[in-house]
């Protein structure tokens, strides 16, 4: 639970750094595109999270990421 919360907070931090704006209302159920985050920014967010955590999500898994929770799950299983 705590790890999930930390990943959510990490997403908010990285997304804010990448897209230069805050994302205070984000939850696990938030659809990433509905946050105004386009595909390229999403790739950047994923890449920066991977770098910080020292993990790698396979390319074929990236297209399955729809919500913030989807991304957190992909990360969590590789920690």
């Amino acid at each position: 639970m705590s790890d999930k919360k930390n990943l959510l907070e990490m997403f908010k931090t990285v997304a804010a750094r990448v897209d230069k704006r805050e994302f205070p209302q984000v939850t696990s159920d938030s659809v990433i595109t509905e946050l105004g985050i386009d595909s390229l920014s999403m790739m950047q967010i994923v890449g920066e999270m991977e770098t910080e955590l020292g993990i790698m999500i396979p390319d074929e898994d990236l297209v399955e990421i729809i919500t913030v929770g989807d991304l957190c799950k992909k990360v969590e299983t590789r920690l």
Partner: protein
Amino acid sequence: MKTRLEEKLYHEYLQFFEKAERERRWNVFEDIPWSRINKEASEELALCAETFCSVEMYLPDYVAGGINVVRDYFGTAWFQANWGYEESKHSLALMQYLLRSGKRSEEQMFDLHNKIFAKKWELPFHTARQMTFYGCVQEQATFVIYVKHRERAAKENDECLRTIYDFVARDEIAHTRFYQGVIKVLLDEDRPGTLADMAHVFANFEMPGVGIVPEYDERILKMREAGIDRSVFIQKVYLPILKYLGVGRHEMLAAQREAIARRAELRDADPAAPATLAATAKAAEATAPGAKLVEVERREQLVDVERREQLVDGNGAPLLAHAGSL
């Protein structure tokens, strides 16, 4: 005396052109099964063909703008000339389809042409390297979209339109391959600079019809019904291009970070954006006080994202990366 770069680009073009002449040429009047048009096919199918035709109709602007950016290099300049010839066949074939199918009259087509030519396509980028990569992304996205619509035409038993999309898609992926070959050469020459330009183009990419094709936003909604969704950009355009070029996702991060940051700065500095948002929010508040601002803001963000990713969603939808994947 030729430079090493000129020589490499010349060979890229010669390879492209030889293959085109030997394996890929097709004839609008002889190779398309015009008798196999399904006149009972849906209006949606015709509307999408008309939209493709409309985008292709800006050919004079594409050629005029594009060829001058690369005129110093024989290989890329001659490619642009050949590209113009091939693209002219695409619009001609689609126009003939619309007329011969009875879906559009000559008068309707003239009206459309007049609307199209009332606006002009402007170069989205202004250096040869950026425009080369723009061409790479645009052709890849277009290929994906045509492949999707080829499937749609087949489902509606329109063998004529299916064949047109087949020829067009084949041309588009060949164009992608040429651009990719050139980008590989440019990566060899200046990898950091080329990566920076790639990131800049990815961050600011729009399909060529955005903002100029009449009723474009409405048309895009119909185009998406072919199965184009946002994941296509990543799956069929972004990742395949990087893979083909031998560039890893993580190698793009530094350049992408800067490109996205510059885009955000422009977004924040655009005085029209907050004004539009405020005006829209005010109007929304007037009709349904409270709770509308967030929705309006969200909707505007979505529109912004969707405009950038039309390829994905309109022009924008799923094609391929390597012809094989489709």
